[in-house]
């Protein structure tokens, strides 16, 4: 579904991604792990073109999205994103946050869109907060709203950029629970995370990145039990 070949990215002199090659199948849950500054987030942001790669290609359903002529708005309608800092719209209520894009993109009548938004809020357990403003919500609640907002676009793929890193430890669980539910429903997900428990339990594939390289990838059981690469071993021994 998503194929990354020879992807490289630099910010000025700093090379943050070096020759990345990754394949992601439909329905797969892929966790990207690794130390801070290893290029995980940049890799994720290249997939939906928030960052433009310096070299290499990314194919989505066989179509090169790194091509300048590709319509990125089509890509963004199909690949949703959940940010570390939630990025909810502070001037809109929870419900309005979710309804904004479907309304602007005329994905249905106002009633249909509202009904769908309320269903999504119910799904993330926040129906009672529909008319609150984001500032009145906890971090975990805000992140769940952000997930509902991304789901409102009926995306085929969801990207998560360290979705629990800005949360108080006791709020991490509620967000992971929603993500696990999505994974169980068959959503294709790419998750940059430091939550090793989640990676081990939920993902189909784990990618370990360090220094801009994909050092090792494989199924979570193998990788967590018997990491092949020395650096993976060292990283896992530090975080587990």
């Amino acid at each position, binding site marked *: 579904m998503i194929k990354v070949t020879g992807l490289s990215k630099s910010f000025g002199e700093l090379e943050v991604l070096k020759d990345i090659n990754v394949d992601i199948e439909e329905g797969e849950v892929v966790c990207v792990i690794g130390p801070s500054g290893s290029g995980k987030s940049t890799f994720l942001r290249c997939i*939906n073109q*928030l960052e433009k790669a310096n070299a290499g290609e990314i194919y989505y359903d066989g179509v090169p999205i790194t091509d300048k002529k590709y319509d990125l*708005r*089509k890509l*963004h*309608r199909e*690949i*949703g*994103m959940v*940010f570390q*800092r939630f*990025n*909810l*719209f*502070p*001037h809109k209520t929870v419900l309005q946050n979710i309804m*904004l*894009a479907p309304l*602007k*993109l005329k994905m249905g009548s106002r009633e249909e869109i509202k009904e769908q938004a309320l269903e999504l809020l119910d799904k993330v357990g926040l129906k009672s907060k529909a008319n609150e403003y984001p500032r009145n919500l906890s971090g975990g609640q805000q992140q769940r709203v*952000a997930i509902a*907002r*991304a789901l409102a*676009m009926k995306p085929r793929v969801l990207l998560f950029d360290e979705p629990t890193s800005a949360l108080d430890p006791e709020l991490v669980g509620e967000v992971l629970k929603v993500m696990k539910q999505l994974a169980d429903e068959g959503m294709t997900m790419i998750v940059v995370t430091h939550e090793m428990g989640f990676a081990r339990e939920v993902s189909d594939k784990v990618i370990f990145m360090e220094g801009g390289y994909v050092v090792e990838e494989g199924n979570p059981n193998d990788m967590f039990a018997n990491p092949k690469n020395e650096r993976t071993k060292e990283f896992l021994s530090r975080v587990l």
Partner: protein
Amino acid sequence: MRFDWSYSIKVIPTLMTGLKYTILISILGILLGFVLGMLTGLARSGKKGILNTIASVYVGIIRGTPLMVQALYIYFAIPMILNINIPVLVAGVLTIGLNSGAYMSECVRGAIESIDIGQREAGTCLGLSKVQVMVSIIIPQAFKIMLPSLGNQFVISVKDTSLLTTIGVAELTRQATQAVSKSFRTVEIYTSLAVVYLLLITTLSFILKKLEGRLK
């Protein structure tokens, strides 16, 4: 000297005539300035390009020259260059509009650039176009931030209309100076003039504060 209140009172009807022009020019000038400020502010907060350059040159010229010189240029020089006739009221509105626009442009740009990049990214990632992101997400948030400095500029612009007396606009200050030249009651008339400005600006500030409060 003896302060004779009656002159202060007698000049009021004349000042009211001037006040009408001051208010008319202020409103039209600030409206023009607001539109210019929004457009050039947006252009300057965007990517480098022709629009950005035009907006930057405009802001540079206006900020680099005194308002009075701008008024003289618009009323006397431009008509000679283009061989057209610009009515003095139009010249007044253009001067206030072009001048306040450049300063509002800076308020707009500053406010837009102060909005977290994550807001733009979130909008983009939901499939919204650049214009939709700007209109639905960035501008509503930026507007709240820019309102106090825009309000400040409104007040400055109202005061700046007094400088239009140099090109002969029949506004408040002009009416007062003419009344003084007839009666020589300098202290009485200029006291009235100052009081009228004070009341006008105080009312405007009050309205702006209310508006700001309601938007918060």
